[in-house]
């Protein structure tokens, strides 16, 4: 199985984000960058598919030189090869999808796995644009995946429930939490990943379809709800936890 997993470099969600002086970008000072958590799930799924079916997993990122760090993580997790499509300018979802598409055409993967969204800009667009560009079925927000022969059965999250869809290889799958628990790399693999090559490609430029006008930190704190200690208040807490925050 020829598996392509696309990953991106995003600020650690635990980092305190500060808006840069241009008002349009994040100030990178003091920010820790990680592999987008949903992409980690995609990586894990790719590795599991390889373990089950044989083949190779290629990790791809579109980004600047520093994104190589995230490819090292992918190599340490166990992907066979890593590719960076390099660009120094800022980019939008179309740019990313277009570059993934260009690369994918050169290796004809059986399956392309991505996170359902990047936790930096949260556009949720790349998997779908990619499907359009490659003319492949694209199933998003997948929490369960089964592949038998060429038949792909995917369970996806929809508002208030789930949906099961069937499609066939080759296809694009975007991963949602719950699909798997990503492995953490083992120390020997981390050491080996240090010296593995990373293939470099130049990005294909495209006109910006989306221009960021400005970004802001939300200042308002979320309004809390204060309840008392009566039975009805406790019922209300249970209801809110169940229906609003859906944690129980």
């Amino acid at each position, binding site marked *: 199985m020829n598996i392509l997993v696309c990953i991106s470099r995003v600020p650690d969600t*635990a980092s305190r984000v500060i808006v840069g002086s241009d008002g349009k970008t994040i100030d990178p000072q003091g920010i*820790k960058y990680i592999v987008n958590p949903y992409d980690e799930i995609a990586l894990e799924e790719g590795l599991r598919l390889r373990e089950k079916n044989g083949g190779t997993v290629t990790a791809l990122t579109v980004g600047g030189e520093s994104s190589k760090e995230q490819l*090292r993580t992918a190599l340490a997790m166990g992907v066979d090869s890593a590719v960076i499509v390099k660009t120094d300018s800022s980019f939008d979802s179309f740019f990313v999808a277009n570059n993934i598409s260009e690369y994918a055409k050169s290796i004809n993967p059986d399956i392309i796995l991505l996170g359902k969204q990047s936790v930096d800009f949260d556009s949720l667009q790349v998997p779908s644009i990619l499907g359009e560009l490659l003319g492949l079925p694209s199933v998003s927000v997948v929490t369960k995946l089964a592949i038998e022969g060429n038949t792909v059965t995917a369970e996806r999250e929809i508002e208030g429930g789930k949906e099961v869809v069937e499609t066939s290889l080759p296809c694009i799958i975007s991963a949602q939490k719950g699909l798997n628990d990503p492995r953490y790399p083992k*120390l020997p693999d*981390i*050491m080996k*990943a240090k010296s593995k090559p990373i293939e470099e490609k130049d990005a294909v430029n495209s006109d910006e379809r989306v221009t960021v006008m400005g970004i802001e930190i939300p200042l308002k704190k979320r309004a809390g709800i204060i309840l008392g200690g009566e039975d009805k208040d406790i019922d209300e807490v249970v209801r809110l936890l169940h229906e609003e925050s859906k944690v129980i």
Partner: protein
Amino acid sequence: MPYKPIDFFGIDELYHPEELLIRQSVRSFVDTEVIPIIEDSFEKADFHFDLIPKMAELGLFGITIPEEYGGIGANYTSYGLAMQELERGDSGIRSFASVQNSLVMYPINKYGSEEIKKRWLPKLAKGEAIGCFGLTEPDHGSNPGGMITNAVETADSYILNGAKMWITNGTIADIAVVWAKLNGEVCGFLVEKGMKGFTAPEMTGKHSLRASITSELVFQDVEIPKINKLNIKGLKGPLSCLTQARYGIAYGVIGAAMAVYDSALDYSLSRIQFGRPIAGFQLTQEKLVNMFTEISKAQLVAYRLGRLKDDDRATSHQVSFAKRNNVEIALNCCRIAREIHGANGIVNEYNVMRHAANLESVKTYEGTHEIHTLILGEHLTGIPAYQ
């Protein structure tokens, strides 16, 4: 609440990417494998044996040992960071790894013959063999030079007699690195489980490091093949191992300190008294700032010491400094965190009391706080004050 480690001075920028990956992997391992079981393991003094193959698989044994002997071949900074993460889980789990890495694999690699290295190191790396380190005796703790365990040379072996006490992993060890006097000089011997006359009863009743096994080692005319003698003479043999382990502790305890700090910060923000979070009171803020400051300083000491070790330039005095300082501040953090948690500070729903109890052992083993003070005192004045 997800764990929020401190990095006020951007030290992470100084770490290499693979060092950070190693730290992250061990952190995830601790989150999934250690933290869920550790309070129970501690309470019942029940060491979880299944952690051994899991730690081995992750690559936590033989971190600085060359790959040809089954090790990872990583640097000392990586080793330090791994110990830090393990100790965020529990000092007992970190102790297990310290002993295996620094007190068993290190001396075998450094002082063992090629045959011995090939026989033991790969097994120790895979966790198929467990090691322990026997230096302390019932009557000789801070003064190991006074040890009475002794070996006598015969035509084709050594005969070992004596007893060791407070030995981490003793009961479960397949191989013990034992220090004994041969013709009045301290020498190291590998004593294997099952050798006639060798027993290792477990010591019970500890209120500290309960998730770690501590044992006596008893030798009654144990016959040891010649090849099992390490190639080093004098107290510098065991002390060189201790320098390795102490370095790991200097890093390790930062993990425990950050764990209790993190819990205290969360708690102080959510605990409401007099109509506001206790974090809003000046006295609580001072406590948080004090912990935060000492942890940040300890991190800088550990980072620099790690880099010196990677260059093979760290001195044992610097290691004493770091062990002494960092254990003390970690223990102080526990006390402060305990206060911030109020009554909750004493229950096992929070990690504070367990870390506090553990660190009492850490302050004593690997050279007591006082002994490190004397080591540094001698370094400054040129006057040894031990006797």
